[in-house]
Structures are given as structure tokens and as C-alpha cells.
């Protein structure tokens, strides 16, 4: 970095020394300078051409860089193209010119540097705003003092405010590296960098040395302001990671909120239902790859309902085949379903193998978007949205569908519901199936961010129970808030305590929390609960 800075400084010195005589020899034609055999003269020609505003400048300098610029003994310049030579000054095809009459314009390192810098400035005038923006950003990073005039001209004609902003920042960076810049200009430049407020601006300000006191003070306060700003973005980024983790926890726990929170069934095989959902995704993708590769982008949309069905049916089978015999004996249910989780894991291991399965990410879920100082990856963003959709869909289903009404009736007053003709065992099975199906859908989402292996579910079971207990049993809003709280807390603790220790701290806090409020954040009150 400092080597770069030093060489840049050197460049600036050379440029300054060079510019003075160029100015004195006013109105010298840059093209004739290029035709010279003197490297200094050629370099001056490149620099002059760069600021000339001539629309042909870019192609001439680019040709020089590629060794495609030739000179005739009469000092006329030609560019060698794919279809022969063209005159450099007019761009008109010169079919009569042949290679043997020409000699190439030679370059040395000083000229090459001048070319690089000139091309950088010239792109500032590109018709494409994106190109102009990138060029300005490059100038900003290079802190090229010689680019100031080009930037000034580019700024004068720039109409896009976003590009103009980057240009002003580049100019500020350049001004700060200009040795004879006035103090007021420097302070103005510092203000612009301060507004930019990112890590590059900060390092640029931090690298300033030997400045007059007023400038140094301004730089120091700008650095402090940028640090504050960066911390804010970092905070936002952590919050986003926390939100993302929270949505994953929510997905994993929301099915449990039904089976454990509402039915009071403790299902240790819940994680394995999630795993089934992930393997369903794998199978769907493999089938699509084999038969209809064009559908790959839609694979997850196909996998979600299938995973719901697979896990839901598995859940109903578990309820009918095992859990119903153990109602009223929660500890036995816990042990039996733990056994079931071992069986499911081993079954999947026997069928699919013990190693991780590759589940692909569709294109629309890859990549990330930049929001100020935030990087939001699309797969995480999708999962957050998906978790919310599942949450609200589930709430709506429970509240507005006839099945939801029956489920609520049975969990609230089994005898009364039975007396009113609701087939309670059937509702039990369906409720459990619903919770399990939601777990399966969670598996589809988790297959995008976690290894799809037989152990996938194990990692989530304790967290899921914690979320449900923390949020308050039997309350979907509580589950959602519990998941988000846990996710965000976890992510904010990570930078302070490290990932593992952060998790331990969260677990300990949770254990303490359950001690204080054994019924969660949103306890249900009433006589019935007291009993």
C-alpha cells in the first residue's frame, strides 16, 4: 500500500514537473508530439491528448498501449485495425498505407504510466454511466493527482448525480495527494471523503501525513465520523445476519410450535422430519437434472409442497403408529421419539449414504445485493421471506380454515369437541401431520444453507425446543419473536465472544431465562394453566 502510495507520489511529482513546460509550449499539437522519437515528448503528447477533449483520444491512446499506433516519416499517425490502417486524427480508412512505410510509436515505462492514467481519465467521458462510475472509482482508488483536470471537465458535463458523486470523491482523493493543494481545498476534500464514509475513505484519510494542523484535525474528526458510520453499518449487518439466523430457527421451530407447543407432544424426531424435507429437495433436484434440466430454477418450488407431503405423511404415521400410545406420558414420548430419530437417521444413511448430498442453488437465489454498507445475499433473503410466508400461512390456516377450527377446538377442549362430533383421533393425526409437514418445508430451506446429511436435523432440535419454550408454549407470535430474539442475540454475541462461546452464552442465558420464567416470554395465564 505504502509502496503504491510512494510510486503514486512520484508520478505526481513527474506529472507536475511535466505539466509546467507543456503549458508554456501552448497549443502544441499532441499528435505531433506522439510522432516524436523522444519518450518525454511522447509522454507529454499522451497527457495533452488525454485532456484535449478530442473524441478520438481514447482510441489513439488505446492503440498506443496495444502497440497498434504507427507513424509515417511525414509524422502522420495511423492506427492498425482488423481491416488495415486508419488515419489516427480523422479515423478515415487509409487503404493506401502499407506496413513497410511505417514505424511503430515506441513506449517506455514512463509513457506506459501516462497511458494508464490517461485511459483512466478518458473513460470518465464514456457514454455509459456505469463505465464512468467504474472509471471514477478507479481514479478514487488510485488517488491520481494528475486526474484532477480530467475530473473537473468530466464533472462539468456529468448529468447522473450518482456518477457525479463518485467523481467528486475521486477528485477529493486526488486533491489530497496533490502537494500544492490549498488548505481550504484539502478540508473540502476531507469533507467529501467523510460523506463517502466507507473503509476506503477511512484508509485514505488515515494515510495522510505531514498535513497542516487544521487539515489534520479535519481528517481526524472525519475518521472518527467514518468509524461511527462503519460501526452503524456493521451493526446493521449483524442485525441482518441475526435476522437470517432467526428466520432459520423460526423455520425449524415453527413445526414444533404446533406439535410441542399446541399438542404438548415432545417429538425428538422433529429434526429428522426437517432432514426428510432436505432429502426430498435432493431427490427432486436429481430427478430434474436427469429428466428436465430446464426446470432446475423451479426445483425448490416443486420441492416445497413435496417436502410438506413427505414429512407430513411421515408425521401422521408417527402419530398413529407410536405417539398416540404414549399420550399423557411426555417423558416416555421423549424417549420413544428419540429412538425414532435414530431409526430415521440410520434409514437415510443406509439409503443415501453417510456423506453430504449436493443440493444446488437456483440462479435466482445466488448472488447478493448491496444496500449502502450492507451485503444481502439472495439465498438468506429468500429464507427470511419464506419463513415469514410460512408463519403467516400457518396462522391463517389455523384461524380461517375448518380444519384449523377443529384443531383449536380439540386442543382446547377435547371432550367437548368429541361430543360435538369431531373425530378427535383424526384431528390429532392431522395436527401432528401439519406440524411435521412444516418441518419438512423448513428442510427445503435449510438444504440451501446447510449440509444435507443424515445428521442435519440433530443440529436444530435443541435450538428449536429452546425457541418454542422461550417464546411461550402454544403461541405462534411468541415462537416468531423467540426465534428472532435468539438469532439476533446470537449474532451480536458472536463478534464479542466468538461463534462457539456466543452459542454457549446464549444457551446459558436461555437456561437462566427458563429458570426465571418457566413459561416463556408470553405465558398463557389462567386457571386452566395453573392446574
Amino acid at each position, binding site marked *: 500500500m505504502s509502496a503504491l502510495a510512494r510510486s503514486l507520489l512520484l508520478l505526481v511529482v513527474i506529472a507536475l514537473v511535466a505539466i509546467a513546460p507543456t503549458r508554456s509550449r501552448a497549443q502544441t499539437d499532441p499528435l505531433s508530439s506522439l510522432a516524436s522519437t523522444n519518450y518525454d515528448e511522447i509522454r507529454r503528447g499522451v497527457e495533452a491528448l488525454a485532456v484535449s477533449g478530442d473524441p478520438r483520444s481514447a482510441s489513439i491512446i488505446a492503440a498506443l498501449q496495444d502497440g497498434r499506433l504507427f507513424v509515417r516519416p511525414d509524422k502522420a499517425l495511423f492506427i492498425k485495425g482488423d481491416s488495415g490502417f486508419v488515419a489516427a486524427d480523422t479515423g478515415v480508412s487509409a487503404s493506401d498505407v502499407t506496413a513497410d512505410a511505417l514505424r511503430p510509436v515506441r513506449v517506455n515505462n514512463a509513457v506506459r504510466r501516462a497511458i494508464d492514467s490517461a485511459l483512466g481519465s478518458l473513460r470518465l467521458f464514456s457514454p455509459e454511466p456505469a463505465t464512468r462510475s467504474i472509471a471514477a472509482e478507479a481514479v478514487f482508488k488510485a488517488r491520481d493527482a494528475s486526474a484532477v483536470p480530467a475530473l473537473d471537465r468530466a464533472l462539468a458535463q456529468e448529468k447522473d448525480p450518482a456518477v457525479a458523486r463518485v467523481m467528486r470523491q475521486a477528485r477529493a482523493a486526488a486533491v489530497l495527494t496533490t502537494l500544492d493543494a490549498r488548505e481550504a481545498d484539502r478540508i473540502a476534500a476531507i469533507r467529501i471523503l467523510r460523506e463517502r464514509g466507507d473503509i476506503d475513505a477511512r484508509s485514505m484519510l488515515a494515510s495522510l501525513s505531514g498535513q497542516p494542523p487544521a487539515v489534520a484535525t479535519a481528517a481526524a474528526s472525519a475518521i472518527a465520523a467514518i468509524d461511527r458510520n462503519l460501526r452503524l453499518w456493521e451493526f446493521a449487518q449483524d442485525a441482518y445476519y441475526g435476522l437470517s439466523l432467526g428466520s432459520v430457527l423460526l423455520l425449524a421451530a415453527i413445526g414444533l*410450535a*404446533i406439535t410441542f407447543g*399446541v*399438542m*404438548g*407432544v*415432545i417429538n425428538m424426531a422433529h429434526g429428522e422430519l426437517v432432514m426428510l424435507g432436505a432429502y426430498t429437495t435432493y431427490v427432486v433436484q436429481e430427478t430434474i437434472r436427469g429428466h428436465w434440466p430446464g426446470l432446475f430454477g423451479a426445483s425448490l418450488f416443486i420441492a416445497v409442497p413435496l417436502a410438506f407431503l413427505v414429512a407430513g405423511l411421515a408425521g401422521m404415521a408417527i402419530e398413529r403408529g*407410536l*405417539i*398416540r*400410545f*404414549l*399420550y*399423557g*406420558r*411426555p*417423558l416416555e*414420548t*421423549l*424417549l*420413544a421419539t*428419540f*429412538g*425414532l430419530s*435414530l*431409526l430415521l437417521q*440410520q434409514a437415510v444413511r443406509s439409503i443415501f449414504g453417510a456423506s453430504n448430498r449436493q443440493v444446488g442453488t437456483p440462479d435466482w437465489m445466488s448472488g447478493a445485493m448491496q444496500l449502502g454498507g450492507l451485503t444481502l445475499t439472495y439465498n438468506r433473503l429468500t429464507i427470511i421471506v419464506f419463513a415469514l410466508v410460512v408463519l403467516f400461512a400457518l396462522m391463517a390456516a*389455523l*384461524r380461517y380454515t375448518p380444519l384449523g377450527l377443529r384443531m*383449536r377446538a*380439540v*386442543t*382446547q377442549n*377435547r*371432550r367437548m369437541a*368429541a361430543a360435538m362430533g369431531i373425530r*378427535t383421533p383424526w384431528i*390429532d393425526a392431522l395436527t401432528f401431520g401439519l406440524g411435521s409437514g412444516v418441518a419438512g418445508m423448513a428442510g427445503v430451506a435449510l438444504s440451501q444453507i446447510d449440509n444435507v446429511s443424515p445428521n442435519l436435523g440433530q443440529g436444530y432440535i*435443541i435450538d428449536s425446543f*429452546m425457541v418454542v*419454550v422461550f417464546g411461550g*408454549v*402454544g*403461541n*405462534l*407470535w411468541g415462537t416468531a419473536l423467540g426465534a428472532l430474539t435468539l438469532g439476533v442475540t446470537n449474532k451480536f454475541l458472536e463478534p464479542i465472544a466468538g461463534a462457539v*462461546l456466543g*452459542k*454457549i452464552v446464549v*444457551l*446459558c442465558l*436461555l*437456561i437462566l431465562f*427458563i429458570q*426465571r420464567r*418457566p413459561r416463556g416470554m408470553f405465558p*398463557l395465564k389462567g386457571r*386452566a*394453566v395453573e*392446574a
Partner: protein
Amino acid sequence: MSARITCIALVLVLGGALLLALGNLATAEQSALHASPYVISLAGKYLCYAILALAVDLVWGFAGILSLGHAAFFALGGYAMGMYLMREIGARGVYGNPVLPDFMVFLNWKTLPWYWHGFNIPGFALLMVVLVPGVLALVFGYLAFRSRVTGVYLSIITQALTYALLLAFFRNDMGFGGNNGMTDFKDMFGLPLQLDRTRDVLMLASAVALSLCLLLARFVVHSRFGKVLIAVRDSESRTRFLGYRPENYKLVVFVLSAVMAGIGGALYVPQVGIINPSEFAPANSIEAVIWVAVGGRGTLVGAVLGAVLVNLGKTYFTGALPELWLFALGALFVLVTLFLPRGIMGLLPVRAEMPLPRAPAPAQAAASEAGPEGVAGADFGR
């Protein structure tokens, strides 16, 4: 009647251990009666597991606390012993550092962490074997029982406890050897661990420890304290209205049980020659619970029986049909809870130490209108 079963169990444990030791030392290797060092260390391992099972049964069978974190106490006892054995290696380690264990030298540590001091003294290490699990159980139990966390909730936070410890012990900077744990022990109380004689002594010591734990547990559950404990298990609030403080009773038995588990772990480590964080895995704790369920919850002797039988099965399966072991273990969980709620001891024509409250037989439960507990008042539409 239950006294006779306990006597039979004690005779089997102590007599069996003696016979194995004799078979190892006094017979020729070709003899049919010869017990190989492998068999001795296996027997020693089973006996330690049986101590853990006894500890689980004490809290689960008699106080209704289904601890899914008891392997944590076992592992802590093991780590305390492991720390002693590490210090005992002295300068014989790979790096030859007289004070620092190898893994600390490897991590470039210069001094011994404060909590490693004293572990070179056998008496101190033995004290820690008892104290560390005991104090953890005391603190955890005090918090949990005082705030009346019971049933499934308690089970889940005990599981979270062992999970947190698992994560913590995986860390290198905790100073317990991280992922690899501690191994390459040389000797114990001056006896080389590689010698057959030492292994026999350790195995016999485990048998004696198990017998003492069994007797102590029996004394506890037959005392008036034990009667209160069962009252707490079956009807905590009724006990409270009689003027007892269930939290104190649970705390005492929880700490006692944790100490037992710690002793089991301490005997386990020198016999298997390694202790690492995987001992904290929640699955280990749950496996210990199934030993008890197989043998018969609330029967003490059943816990010992279950631990030995299930582990015999595990040794057989993992050797012969490793693919099938998890299937077998999983099926065991399901089948025992469904069809054998009283375990093997329930099949015997004798009364258990302290019968469990009547649980509905599976067929009965299905026929009755039993439904999920349902959180009364749960309003998930709001």
C-alpha cells in the same frame, strides 16, 4: 424381597469381577477360562456405565427428574481424572515438558492455567472428581428446582446444559485438550496403566464402587427421605401442601446422583485411556436413560442390569453388524417404552424397589379417549 435381589446383584457384580480378574491373572493364555485384557477392560467399562445408569435411575426413577444431561457429570468426573493422569505423565510426553501437558506445548502455552494446579496431587484430583460434578449439579439444580422447572422442560434444559459443555470443551483455549481431549496416559498412583494387574485392579475398583453406590442408593430410597422423594415424584404439589420443600429433596438427590456419575466417569477414563468432548454429546445421556428404561426404571438393580445388557448388545452389534446398531438401539427405545414400561425387572415375579405409579397399558391407552395433553387455552389463532 427387593433386599434379596440387591444381594444377588452384589454377589454377581463382585463375584463376577473377581472371577474375571482371576481368569486374567491366574490362568494361562491358552486356557478356556482365560480372560483377555480386552475382556477385562470391557467389563470395567460396563461397570462404569452401570454406575452412570444407577445415577440416572436415582433421579429419574425416584424423583421423576428425567435428566438428559447426566453424561455431562460422568464426563466432568472423567476430565478431573484425566487431568490428574495428564500431570502424572510428567516429562514422559512427546515434548518432554515436565509441567505442561503435550497439547499445551503444542498450543505454545508457556504456563499451566490456574485450574490445572493441584491436579498432580492424587488426593486433590479425587476430591475434584466428586466436587466438580457435585457443584455444577448444586448450582444448576438450585436454579432449576427453585423456579419449579419440571418434566419435559427440565429434560430439555439438562440437555442444553450438556450441549453447552460439549461446545465449550471442543474449544482449544478452554485448556482441556480441545477436540482431541486427553490421552496417552502412562500410569495412575504409580501403577503403569498398561499392566494387566493395574487393569484388573481398576476393574475390581469399579465393581466395588458400583456395589457401594448401589448400597448407598438403596439406603437413600428406603429411608424416609426416599419416601418423600417418591411422593414428590408422583405429586409434587401435594407434598408441598404437607409442608415439605420438594426443591430441597430434588436438589439433594440430584447432587448425590451427579457425584455418583462423576465417580463412574473417573473410573472410566483410566480404563479406556482417553477422555474427549464427545463424552458430552447429548446422545450419550439419552443412551444412559435407555439403559435404565430397559432394566426397569425405579428398581436400581434394573439400571445396572440394563447398562450391562445394552452395552453387551452394542459391543456385539458394532463388531458384527455396525450398520444395524443404530437400528437396534432406535428400535430398543421405541419397543421398551411401548411394550415394556417397567423394563426387564418388571417381568420378574417380585416387587420392585418402589413401584411406579400405574401407567396405562398401551392397549388401554389406545382404547380410552386419551389424547395429547394439549396446552389448555392455547390460542394459536391470535
